[in-house]
């Protein structure tokens, strides 16, 4: 226990430094703002700010980017509630009861409860993070290369299959991503692979251009095409109208408890993130409610449960990410990329080799959630006015910012062409119903996977049975097989025969 306290002390002394506090605030505020903007998510924001992190100390960079991630999980609810437009995917379900509440004049109450629920969810997730991660780490430190491979395979497969309609397509994206991660010079042999004769690709795909293209540019293309530019109504939210009644509180807190529990659990699973967590919490809440018909008409539980759930999920997504180096979601995957860029190797040894980074980051989560709570209640009016920025102004800003950001990484115009290529690819992939998140997970984990695969086989002198040679490895691979099997059964059952 005293270990935990000394770690927490270390963490807070790092997180409370002036620089890290500033970056935390920037991250949280930016995250809320971008989350509130319909059409742009945390992923694009993180990708856009990736180049800036090169000039910043890694802990500060991670704190800021993480702040964007969970800030967006809160901010998305603002436009969901006020405009019936999801700010982020994970807040889509909040529209169902949040918008009716706005129509009933109770938008302020919904926003207030959301802030509280999000804070609570974040706290619960954070508690789990702090207690579970050291435990997981001590377990994972005993892994050999073969176990790493099995674990990564499990993580990638789970990420691909847990939330998909087409297991084949998601698996294809993961494998393709891993292949793309191999582009460049092979460290072991010096062989240049898949570089199409372009020298700037010898170092591998520029991750910033790829991420921004897949999640930023393709999103812009899609939204510009479908957005008719309808004017958004201006909703005024006064401070007094925000205070919930005692009945509201009484109904909300059990929903928050259930939601945070569900979200915490789901967030840990690689591939299942805030989106699924929020939907499940809503579904569960509806099922346990005394009067389920109230849902969809402004039931406050329909707002507090999913909001608590998605913030919890966002926090616990860091458990596999920080403890094992397996991202729980696409956004933590980008954070892993930031770590690698700064020369920090993610994985179980991360906590022991960089304790100030791990505990500083964890402590910053608490500070960030507090900031979200404190800042957002008075700032509601500001957000409301900001989300009425017309899309035709927003789009050129984001495209230009993306260009400058990508270019600033290496001052290489070729990166901009990569940005274009992946922007188009992302758009085509969305049309063909392929998952971009699975792709980027593969790209980021690919090199690690190959390295461990190679090492495992060298140690085992080419004997493949090493992968089923230890109970841990067998367990991972067994789980993988289970997930694959259940995904296929699910898909087979859903498949409707052609007319």
């Amino acid at each position, binding site marked *: 226990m005293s270990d935990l306290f000394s770690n927490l002390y270390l963490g807070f002394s790092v997180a409370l430094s002036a620089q890290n506090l500033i970056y935390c605030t920037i991250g949280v505020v930016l995250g809320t703002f971008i989350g509130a903007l319909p059409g742009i998510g945390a992923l694009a924001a993180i990708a856009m700010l990736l180049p*800036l992190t090169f*000039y910043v100390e890694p802990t500060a960079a991670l704190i800021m980017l993480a702040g964007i991630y969970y800030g967006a999980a809160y901010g998305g609810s603002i436009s969901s509630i006020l405009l019936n437009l999801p700010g982020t995917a994970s807040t889509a379900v909040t529209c169902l009861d949040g918008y009716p509440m706005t129509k009933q004049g109770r938008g302020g109450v919904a926003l207030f409860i959301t802030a509280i629920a999000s804070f609570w969810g974040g706290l619960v997730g954070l508690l789990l993070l702090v207690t579970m991660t050291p435990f997981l780490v001590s377990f994972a430190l005993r892994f050999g290369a073969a176990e790493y491979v099995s674990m990564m395979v499990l993580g990638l497969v789970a990420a691909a299959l847990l939330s998909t309609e*087409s297991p*084949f*397509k998601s*698996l*294809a994206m993961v*494998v*393709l991503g*891993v*292949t793309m991660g*191999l582009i460049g010079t*092979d460290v*072991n*042999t010096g*062989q240049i*692979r*898949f570089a199409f004769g372009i020298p700037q690709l010898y170092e591998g795909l520029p991750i910033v251009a790829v991420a921004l293209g897949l999640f930023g*540019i393709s999103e*812009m*293309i*899609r939204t*510009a*095409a*479908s*957005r008719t*530019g309808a004017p958004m109504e201006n909703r005024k939210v006064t401070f007094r109208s925000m205070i919930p009644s005692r009945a509201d509180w009484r109904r909300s807190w059990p929903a928050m408890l259930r939601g945070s529990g569900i979200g915490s659990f789901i967030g840990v699973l690689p591939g299942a993130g805030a989106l699924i967590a929020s939907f499940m919490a809503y579904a569960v809440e509806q099922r346990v409610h005394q009067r389920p018909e109230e849902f969809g008409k402004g039931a406050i539980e329909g707002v507090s449960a999913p909001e608590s759930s998605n913030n919890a999920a966002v926090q616990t997504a860091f458990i596999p990410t920080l403890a094992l180096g397996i991202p729980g979601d696409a956004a933590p995957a980008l954070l892993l990329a930031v770590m690698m860029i700064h020369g920090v190797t993610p994985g179980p040894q991360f906590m022991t080799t960089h304790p100030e980074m791990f505990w500083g980051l964890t402590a910053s989560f608490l500070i960030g959630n507090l900031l979200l709570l404190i800042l957002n209640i008075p700032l509601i009016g500001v957000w409301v006015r900001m989300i009425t920025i017309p*899309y*035709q*102004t927003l*789009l*050129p800003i984001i*495209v*230009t*910012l993306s*260009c*400058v950001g990508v270019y*600033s990484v290496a*001052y290489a*115009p070729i990166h*901009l*062409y990569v*940005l*274009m290529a992946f*922007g188009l690819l992302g*758009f085509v992939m*969305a*049309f*063909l*119903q392929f998952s971009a998140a699975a792709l980027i997970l593969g790209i980021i984990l690919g090199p690690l996977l190959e390295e461990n695969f*190679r090492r495992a*086989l*060298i140690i085992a*002198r*080419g004997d493949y049975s090493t992968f089923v040679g230890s109970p841990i490895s067998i367990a991972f691979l067994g789980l993988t097989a289970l997930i694959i099997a259940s995904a296929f059964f699910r898909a087979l059952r859903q*498949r*409707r*025969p*052609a*007319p």
Partner: protein
Amino acid sequence: MNRTGHEAPLKGKPLGFEPVHFLAGLLVTAVGVYVLVNGFGYGIGTARRMGAGYFPSVLGALLVLIGIGIVVFDARRADPVAIGDSPVRSILAILAAIATFAVLIRPLGLALAAFAAAFISSFASEKVTALGAAVTAILVALGAVLIFSYGIGLQMKVFPL
């Protein structure tokens, strides 16, 4: 999740399979073949001493199998993929904007490249006017220069000197 705009179903009689999924599977298989062939080209080596092409070959083979799986399983699904509003305008505008930036940034510097990118990409929206686009572009260029050159201190040419 289908997010290609309005849910206008494909016109025409039901084909018995969904061509989009078929195409998707074909693409994956084609990529898989490409990766596999190149993987062999890089030299496979043995499991004990993997060549540069060992892992890619494994991945390529997997892709081929998965691609076939997509064709066999998904193409038979009858849920049509909606083709929404034509994205051609936004694709052209946005990609042209990025390409213009790429071409202009070295010779002409940040200010002009940012202006060009912002101006061109504005035309992705249908409701844009040339004047509105120009105004936005000037503001964006100004902001970009302020934030990136003066604020963060990036070492790139701002004006054509």
